[in-house]
C-alpha cells in the first residue's frame, strides 16, 4: 500500500502535464499599438475650366471638378493648413489675375473663396475636404496652361 502511494505521488505531475486545463482558465490576449500620425490622400485632382465670359477659370465652371482630399488622423485631431494659392500660367498672364481657393469638409469646415492662407482645426479624426479653385482676371486670359497651387499641411 505504501508503494502504491509513492507511485501515485510520482505520477501525479505527469498527469497534470498531459490533461489539458479547462478552456475557461486560458487567457487569450491580442495586443496592438497605433502610432499618432496623419495621413493625407488626394484622391481626385481638380480641373479648371474657363467661364463663358471669360474672366474666370475655375473648378466650379461647367466641365471642371473639385479636388478631394481625405484626412486620416490617429491619436489626436490635427489642423489642416492651406497655403495662399499661387498661379502657374503662361507668359503674358495679367498682373491683376488672382488665385483663390475655397473648401468644405464633411466635418464641418467651410471656407469661402480666399486668396490668403487659411486653416481648419479638425474636430474628428477622419474627414474629407472638397477643394475648389479659381483664377479671376478682369482683363481676360492669355492662351496657355494654368494651374492654381496650394500646399496642404496636416500638423498639430
Amino acid at each position, binding site marked *: 500500500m505504501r508503494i502504491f502511494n509513492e507511485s501515485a505521488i510520482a505520477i501525479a505531475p505527469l498527469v497534470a502535464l498531459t490533461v489539458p486545463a479547462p478552456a475557461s482558465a486560458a487567457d487569450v490576449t491580442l495586443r496592438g499599438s497605433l502610432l499618432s500620425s496623419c495621413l493625407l490622400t488626394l484622391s481626385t485632382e481638380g480641373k479648371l475650366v474657363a467661364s463663358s465670359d471669360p474672366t474666370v477659370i475655375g473648378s466650379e465652371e461647367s466641365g471642371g471638378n473639385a479636388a478631394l482630399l*481625405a484626412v486620416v488622423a490617429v491619436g489626436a485631431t490635427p489642423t489642416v493648413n492651406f497655403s495662399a494659392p499661387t498661379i502657374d500660367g503662361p507668359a503674358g498672364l495679367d498682373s491683376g489675375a488672382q488665385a483663390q481657393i475655397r473648401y468644405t469638409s464633411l466635418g464641418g469646415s467651410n471656407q469661402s473663396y480666399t486668396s490668403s492662407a487659411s486653416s481648419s482645426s479638425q474636430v474628428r479624426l477622419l474627414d474629407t475636404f472638397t477643394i475648389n479653385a479659381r483664377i479671376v482676371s478682369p482683363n481676360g486670359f492669355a492662351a496657355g496652361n494654368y494651374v492654381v*497651387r496650394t*500646399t496642404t*499641411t496636416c500638423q498639430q
Partner: protein
Amino acid sequence: MKRLAPLLAALALAATPALAVGLGPLSKSGITDSDRKGFFLTLINPYPSATPYRAYAVGEEDESPQPRVRIVPAEVTLGGRATRRILVIAQELRPGEEYAFRVCAERSDIEEGMINARVCSRLRARRLPGA
C-alpha cells in the same frame, strides 16, 4: 453608418490616390546633455506601389529652411503600404537652448497638380544648461 457613407466613398476613391503621404508622431520633444538630439519619425506610404518621398526641416511657424537639422534618410523610396523610420538630428544645441522646428514629408516626384499634400511633425529639443 449613413453619416460615414460619403467618407467611405471618398476613401474608396483613394484606392489609387493621386497623392498621398503619412507621417507620425505629429509632435515630439526631448532633452539632451550634449549638442545633439535625435528623434525617430515614421514615414508612411499609403500607396499600393513603391513611391519616392522626401523629408525636410522648416521653422516652427514658417517655411525657413533649418540647416541645423539633419535627416537620415532625407529621400527614400518606400514599398507599397510600407513604413520606415527616419532619424532626425537637431545639431549645434547651445547649453540651455530650446530649439523647436518642424519636419515635413511629401512625395518627391510631385507632378503638375493643384494640391501639394504634406504632413509635418513638430519637434522640440532642449539642451540642459552647462554645469
